[in-house]
């Protein structure tokens, strides 16, 4: 069969998947095509006139890619895997649907990244961060890191690697490449008091000595140096200065890039979103010469990606949906929520399906302790809801304020209790389930339309 015929078969499958309401056709057609034509990503990728950019990270890849789209879209037609299907099948599906007169912009799962990058040969590769995540699926952090290291060694020299210089592990992987753009935060006043418990890479990737941090911004990200082997955070090509948080509404920072500085008010909270915005601005500049001023426009008009600080109203109740999937990301979510002084109602949904990680021990690496004294009512749900409820109890939330409810009634239980804002913290598959419920009530659009 000719390639075009195989692609046609796969496109028909996509349309059928959407028509039968089984999903958005975000992975199935690609899976089918890759079975017929294993090098489909490479073949389709070569046809993209603008080339492509690829974003990967443990945390923030979906948001970073969406921010980059907001920055690029006014002037560039994009081919994206916006619905978050970020394995080979998702990339192939997006390429099938995409217009060849476009530029590719893909978020890619960190374990699938080496294979996708090998096939796609992107012009720009963004390496955001590496945190401990789903050990049962990915293996140890070092294993993912070793795969990235081999990938970078095999890159064409003219590929630009945009990397988070504040992450010592990512920096040690990326800095060997000849064409790099280092991004990071340059604002000691935004630093944390100490490395959090869940910090993963506090040892020098070169010699194993304990790293010294002049400032810690998030997890193990910060201004670091090794006292033993003289390695330190690289000079920043793209930096965020004067970072000022505005509760749950926004964060402001000064973006320094390509010799210019602009003030950005990002309509999303949290230090992690400053990193995402920096990565997106650096991507836009490297791929298409986007100026900091134009990047600012894109970032300021940005709206949250699916389940990433997404705001909805349920029965008149102000509700925010937050995806949690690993300790570093969840710690930042908790920290951000606690910047709101009002007593809160929580709905926490913990599933242990394959996409969530079968091993739920990670919730014990999350610092839920700052929630002590802040929670009016908590509803725990999901396949491991009881375990989540217990975690909150050990964090100091009174047992009388905690209930375990089935997924079907969890939203109603949560909206029926408490008075302040409702924060919905969920793992990936639980987010899909809850969004289906909310979509049935007409509150959010299906995920493949929302992206």
């Amino acid at each position: 069969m000719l390639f075009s015929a195989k692609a046609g078969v796969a496109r028909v499958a996509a349309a059928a998947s959407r028509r039968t309401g089984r999903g958005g056709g975000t992975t199935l057609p690609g899976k089918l095509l890759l079975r017929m034509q294993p090098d489909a990503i490479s073949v389709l990728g070569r046809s993209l006139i603008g080339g492509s950019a690829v974003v990967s990270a443990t945390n923030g890849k979906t948001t970073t890619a969406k921010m980059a789209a907001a920055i690029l879209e006014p002037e560039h037609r994009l081919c994206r895997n916006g619905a978050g299907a970020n394995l080979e099948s998702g990339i192939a599906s997006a390429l099938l649907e995409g217009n060849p007169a476009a530029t590719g912009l893909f978020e890619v799962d960190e374990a699938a990244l080496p294979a996708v990058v090998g096939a796609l040969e992107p012009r720009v590769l963004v390496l955001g961060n590496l945190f401990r995540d789903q050990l049962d699926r990915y293996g140890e952090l070092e294993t993912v890191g070793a795969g990235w290291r081999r990938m970078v060694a095999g890159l064409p020299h003219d590929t630009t690697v945009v990397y988070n210089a504040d992450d010592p592990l990512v920096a040690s992987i990326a800095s060997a490449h000849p064409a790099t753009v280092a991004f990071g935060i340059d604002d000691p006043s935004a630093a944390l008091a100490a490395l959090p418990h869940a910090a993963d890479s506090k040892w020098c990737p070169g010699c194993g000595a304990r790293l010294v941090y002049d400032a810690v911004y998030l997890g193990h990200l910060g201004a670091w140096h090794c006292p033993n082997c003289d390695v330190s955070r690289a000079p920043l090509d793209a930096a965020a200065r004067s970072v000022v948080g505005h509760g749950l509404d926004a964060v402001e920072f000064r973006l320094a890039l390509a010799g210019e500085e602009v003030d950005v008010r990002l309509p999303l909270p949290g230090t992690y979103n400053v990193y995402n915005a920096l990565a997106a601005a650096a991507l836009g500049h490297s791929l298409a010469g986007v100026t900091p001023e134009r990047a600012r426009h894109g970032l300021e008009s940005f709206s949250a990606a699916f389940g990433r600080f997404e705001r909805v109203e349920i029965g008149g109740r102000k509700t925010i949906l937050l995806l949690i999937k690993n300790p570093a990301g969840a710690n930042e979510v908790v920290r951000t929520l606690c910047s709101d002084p009002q007593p809160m109602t929580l709905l926490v949904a913990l599933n242990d399906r394959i996409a969530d990680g079968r091993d739920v021990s990670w919730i014990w690496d999350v610092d839920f302790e700052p929630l002590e004294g802040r929670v009016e009512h908590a509803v725990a749900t999901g396949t491991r809801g009881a375990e989540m409820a217990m975690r909150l109890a050990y964090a100091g939330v009174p047992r009388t304020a905690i209930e375990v409810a089935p997924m079907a009634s969890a939203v109603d239980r949560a909206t029926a209790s408490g008075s302040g804002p409702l924060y919905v913290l969920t793992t990936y598959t639980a987010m899909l389930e809850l969004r289906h419920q909310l979509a049935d009530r007409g509150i959010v659009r299906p995920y493949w339309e929302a992206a």
Partner: protein
Amino acid sequence: MKPLRIAHLYPEHLNIYADRGNIAVLTRRCAWRGLDVEVTACGPGDALPAADLYYLGGGQDRDQVLIADDLRGKGDDLRSAVDDGALVLAVCGGYQLLGHRYRGHTGEEMRGISLVDLETVAGDRRMIGNVVLRCELEPGKPETLVGFENHAGRTTLGPGLKPLGTVVRGGGNNGEDGGEGVYTGRVIGTYVHGPLLPKNPWLADWLIRTGLGVDDLEPLDDGLELEAHQVAAQL
């Protein structure tokens, strides 16, 4: 009453499967009962502190190699402490280090402290998944232990040593002999994390009771713990 003294060995290196959850459970369950508890972190180069319970977690391979040498230097002190009645709880990598050695895929060896007569050889397939064990630390009082395992090592106990429990579900020590972990009366080693103690409050309380040398503890409201235990036992 004197406090329960817990020494947490290498918390910065051996912490891969949320090991601090085990410490949090011991600490809270003491505090909820008005019992004093002292947790001392002990890192590389530190002298082994006096304690009622020594805790060793699991680490990434690289971190384990980093601390194995240091731990051997503390081996004699730990053995004396156990002879004097202290408890040891070791999970995953920490469990392997209690034995004679860990032999990797290419034959490289990491020596342990030989506190317990066991040794571990790398297998070609990781055992990953939910675990259910049947345990009987105290004769006539059978208990169920639930959690998650994720290990490549195959551990074999020396003759006469008893496992912590028999495998109802999961791989256990080596996927062959039906045993999981080791239990010597003072030393518990296991591959079960999840972490180990939150969903197994009976084991947390056994450690607190035995560590303090008391017969009974004030009962707690364990409704959530038992529900989480039940869910995990049925996975």
